[in-house]
Structure formats: structure tokens, C-alpha cells
């Protein structure tokens, strides 16, 4: 059982992802491992997205107290975990986001979910 990390700079379609996995399996085969391609499954989707504005993390965390967590000593981003979508959004002060989720749909809805909250805490605004 292999877990493959694939880097997609295009919109990921399931077939392309599967092709990529097949290519990876071929590489492994050439290395000499016994490979059998079965039960291809997308487990985790990571997306990077950027807001056109910078975000004030302290205010963002204060407004969304238990769900958002910001620990500047540990990680420069504030993490926002959406329970019902099972997605995690990491917000950086520059306005870029990193979204992780089980599938593409949840990632997209997570971005839409968190956008209004970020919009409130824009840099020039809520300082």
C-alpha cells in the first residue's frame, strides 16, 4: 500500500490524478518493487489560495475564539478548523491560505465559508 503525494498546479480532475498515480506506480515498478494498481482513492487534498488583502490575525482569532487558534511561537499562521466539513484552513498574515480537506468539494466550501470572516479582519480595516 503506497501513499502518493502529488503536486497539482492545474485543477485536479480525478482521471488526471489517477494517471499520475499510475505513473508513480510505473516508477516504483522500474525500481524493482512488485506493484499492483488497485483501489485508487484520494485521501487528502491540499489547496493554496490567496486573498487580495492582508489579514489581521490577532483580531481574526479573537473573533472566532474556540475554532481559530493562533500560536505565533509555534507557527506563523492561524489555524481554523471547520468541523462539519472536516477541513482545516491556515491563514497567514499576508492573506494567503492553505486549505486541507478530504476531498476537493470540502476544500472549496471551506474557502467560501471562511472568506467573510477574513473579509471582516482586513488589514487596513480592523486595525
Amino acid at each position, binding site marked *: 500500500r503506497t501513499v502518493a503525494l502529488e503536486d497539482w498546479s492545474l485543477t485536479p480532475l480525478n482521471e488526471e490524478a489517477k494517471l499520475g498515480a499510475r505513473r508513480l506506480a510505473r516508477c516504483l515498478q522500474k525500481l524493482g518493487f512488485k506493484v499492483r494498481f488497485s483501489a485508487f482513492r484520494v485521501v487528502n487534498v491540499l489547496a493554496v489560495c490567496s486573498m487580495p488583502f*492582508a489579514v*489581521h*490575525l*490577532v483580531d481574526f*482569532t*479573537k473573533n472566532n*475564539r*474556540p475554532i481559530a*487558534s*493562533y*500560536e*505565533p*511561537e*509555534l507557527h*506563523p499562521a492561524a489555524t481554523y478548523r471547520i468541523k462539519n466539513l472536516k477541513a482545516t484552513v491556515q491563514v*497567514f*498574515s*499576508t492573506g494567503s491560505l492553505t486549505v486541507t480537506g478530504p476531498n476537493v468539494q470540502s476544500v472549496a466550501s471551506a474557502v467560501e465559508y471562511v472568506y467573510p470572516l477574513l473579509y471582516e479582519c482586513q*488589514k487596513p480595516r480592523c*486595525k
Partner: protein
Amino acid sequence: MASTSRGESLALPKVQCPNHPEALLVEDYRAGDMICPECGLVVGDRVIDVGSEWRTFSNEKALKDPSRVGDAQNPLLNGGDLTTMISRGTGAASFDEFGNSKYQNRRTMSSSDRAMLNAFKEISTMADRINLPRNIVDRTNNLFKQVYEQKSLKGRANDAIASACLYIACRQEGVPRTFKEICAVSRISKKEIGRCFKLILKALETSVDLITTGDFMSRFCSNLGLPKQVQMAATFIARKAVELDLVPGRSPISVAAAAIYMASQASAEKKTQKEIGDIAGVADVTIRQSYRLIYPRAAELFPPDFKFDTPVDKLPQL
């Protein structure tokens, strides 16, 4: 103490006055008697006296308080154990022929709480190293007890949980310590403490306030030996810098360190970046980076009544 006999029948053998069976007996615990109020007959005697065995005077503070038996109880934290331990013998009779002591090992007491007691000792040691007051240690112990009873973090090293509890307690009391400071007194890595910290917050469903630059100013400045003026200036600079958002995305510790550097360079007590980095646990280059960000607006950042030893334009530029 024996209960006063009542009119209703109890399972306990009743004492009652032979002349006045309905009378409620009065206890005289000083003499150890039960007396009938009607006729004054002493009905029961040699009742156990609960007064103290010897008199203790409050003004003399002897090393041991003779009216207490055993150590002060800590019922909140322990399981309220009343076990007895065998301590090391003192007289000659406690040693057998080889010179080894008889009854060597103390009997294990409350093995379920043994790990917890160990952790309390560890917490106390760690707190002692950084001179934390009693209230923080008590809070840490409480947090640890809650986490321990919940058992959700059972797999983690107790020391890691203890260190994370110490960190949280400092935060909750309003005097946060940086992770690096906690690391310095603990054997656990910063990463592990951070992980345990997040897990504990989730397990106890609490959250903590965010750290600000001002929380650390007094400690860092005292450790560097900077006068009050410089400390106040550094606090002002750091706060202003965060308000004006000159340092987005920088850890408050780094900003604080850079502010201290700027304030100290402008005063008579100049400190090098290396010294400040040493105290704050921030890398040399990080201070330099943050300093570069606040340098352009240095003039506005200083408090209005600050006395400059080195004027603003002569501040070192890195």
C-alpha cells in the same frame, strides 16, 4: 463522637438516664461525660476526648506542630490517601547485621496516583528553576490532575504534559513564559511541548489569551539589567510597532527583542543583539530582521518624553 440518644429507637445501644429515659443527654466532652439535664446524673463516662493532646501556643513556632499527625493533606490533588509509609529508621535497632537497614523499602502507596505525585514533584522542580510563585504551581497541578483523570493524553510522556501544563498555567495567570523558557527547565523538546499544549487545550476545551509584547518586557529588561526608563521605552516601542503594523507575521517575542535593542541603543545602556537574543531565546538574525522593519519609523516609535543618549538618526542600521 457518640450521638445523643433520642426518643426514636436506633440500632445503636442507647444510653439514657434511668430516671428520665426521655431526656436528651448533654455531652460534656471536656470531662468525657454524658449528663442528664434533668437530674444531673452522669450517665456515660470515659467517652473519648477529641480535644488536643497537648497545648500549643501560637506565638512560638516550633518546627513541628504537635497537634497535627502527618503531613498537611492535599485532598484536592491526591486521591485522599491515608496510607502509612515506613520511613528510614533512626535508632540502632533498625539496622540488621550487615549494616543494611531493616524494612528497606517504603511500602508503595496509592500506586494509581504514584505517577501523578511524580509529576507534581517534577512540576515543582521545574517551577523552582524559574522561580515561579506558588499560585502558578497550584494551577499547574490542577491542570495536570484534570488532564490525567481524563486519560485522553495517556500515551504522552508525563513530563511533556507537565511542561505543557506549566506553560498553560503561566499563560492563564497573565504572566506567559515563552516555550523556549519552559524548554530550558524541562527535558522535553519544544515541538513536543507545543504538541501537548494543543492537545491539552482541546482535551480541556479551554483557550488561552494571545501573547502580547508587553508580557515579556519586564522580565527581559531586568535580566539584561536595563533601567526602568529603557524598559518603558521598549514597551512603548513594541506596542506602537504592533499598532502601526510594521511587523506583520512576526512573533511578539522577536518584536519585543527588537524593541529592546532599539531602546537600549538609544540610551546609555547599549546591549548587543547577541545578548538580547540570548535572554529572549531569539536568534541574532531574527532580531536583525525585525529591527530592520521598525527602523524606518524609529522616530515615531519612541515615547515623547524619552531622553536620548544617542539620537534617532545615529541609531545603528543593520
